[in-house]
């Protein structure tokens, strides 16, 4: 048991502009390992499968319990979180690549700025600032709170963008997650006061119209967020809003 090894094939890239290359590693196996702990082994002892000394592999992670979204990478062809990818459940050799939708910074670390820009574009927050205390807002019905909570689990991990055939360099699509976030904030009783601003944003460039219903996002989302339900719901809302705007203003 002691000399059992985990075989990894990692797609690496030294700088944002350099050409990616593959490097193989064999790290000592431990029970209940996940991909992060395998990467930590490489960090501890940066020697590749050929026995040559190499640069340690760079990746991002924080929570180590699939709630922050920082450690997303493509593992055996599927985008997912490295911290919840258990080595025992993966076919070996384990192929690890950075998500291709985002610019690579180095090795497995990617720049997810476009997601944060998308959240800013759709105003995925609730404005409560004022010059005086506005007092408590209206209460949210419990039935709505229950499903809204599910939507609030989004951790901006990028998996739904990686899975979507319409998120690519030829298209400006902001991605499924942002549409679901509009549904979340428009449902909130205080957030609903700025509903139209978010709807306008969804109707803008790269907005909801870019969705082509491949429905990969809902299959891929690690948090089980009903993304396609959110999208269809926001389709209805944006259509209603567009017609109202066209005929009554």
């Amino acid at each position, binding site marked *: 048991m002691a000399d059992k090894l985990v075989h990894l094939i990692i797609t690496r890239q030294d700088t944002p502009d350099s050409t990616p290359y593959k490097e193989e590693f064999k790290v000592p196996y431990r029970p209940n390992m996940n991909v992060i702990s395998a990467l930590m082994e490489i960090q501890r002892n940066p020697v590749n499968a050929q026995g040559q000394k190499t640069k340690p592999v760079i990746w991002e992670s924080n929570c180590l319990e699939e709630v922050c979204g920082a450690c997303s990478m493509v593992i055996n062809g599927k985008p997912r979180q490295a911290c919840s990818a258990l080595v025992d459940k993966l076919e070996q050799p384990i192929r690890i690549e950075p998500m291709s939708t985002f610019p690579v910074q180095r090795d497995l670390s990617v720049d997810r700025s476009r997601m944060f820009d998308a959240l800013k574009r759709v105003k995925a927050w609730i404005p409560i600032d004022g010059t005086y205390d506005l007092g408590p807002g209206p209460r949210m019905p419990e039935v709505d709170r229950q499903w809204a909570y599910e939507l609030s689990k989004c951790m901006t991990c990028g998996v739904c963008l990686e899975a979507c055939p319409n998120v690519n360099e030829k298209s400006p699509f902001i991605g499924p997650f942002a549409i679901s976030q509009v549904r979340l904030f428009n449902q909130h009783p205080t957030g609903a006061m700025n509903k139209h601003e978010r709807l306008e944003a969804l109707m803008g460039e790269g907005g909801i119209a870019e969705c*082509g219903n491949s429905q990969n996002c809902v299959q891929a989302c690690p948090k089980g967020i009903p993304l396609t339900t959110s999208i269809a719901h926001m389709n209805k809302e944006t259509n209603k809003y567009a017609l109202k705007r066209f005929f009554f203003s």
Partner: protein
Amino acid sequence: MANSQEFVSRRIHSLLGLVPIGLFLLVHLVANYSATRGAEAFNSTVTFMESLPILIVLEFVFIYIPLLFHAIYGIYIAFQAKSNVGNFGYLRNHLFLWQRISGIITLIFVAWHVWQTRIQIAMGTEFNYDLMASILSNPAMVVFYVIGVLAAVFHFSNGIWSFLVHWGITVGPRSQRLASYFTLVIFVVVSFIGIRAITAFIQ
């Protein structure tokens, strides 16, 4: 308002696919089906169609212009996607890819079909059962027509499914699954009508 141009174009694209284009497809295939009752019946359907008032205006408003818009904008949509059925082999993802492939096949087929029929008529050929029978006396043409009709009907049926989502009619997974069964039935029934009509011209 100006920045929602894309949004509006997509919605128009979706709407036109159903009305009038999809509706026209149904009328067209059902009209063809009259050939199963013999040359006589088909020719009288043709005469009836040709007797419609302001036919050329109807053709432009309800067929050519919507079809051109749907086709050109559709090509743009099709080539914007980066298909990934290899890593994500889910049914809907395959249908997503096939919606784009069938759209392109349908476009090629329709262009050819319009040239063989409508343009020939405009240039003086008389349209009747015999014209179609002579086109379909070539087995390669039969194969081409069958593929063309299947592509068009698939694009139409699966397009209804997307239409229902784009217009917020089927929102949750259950209604979307029901819509899948419903559009599957449409595909089977309309394909049968379309292909049966083709075989009626083979002597």
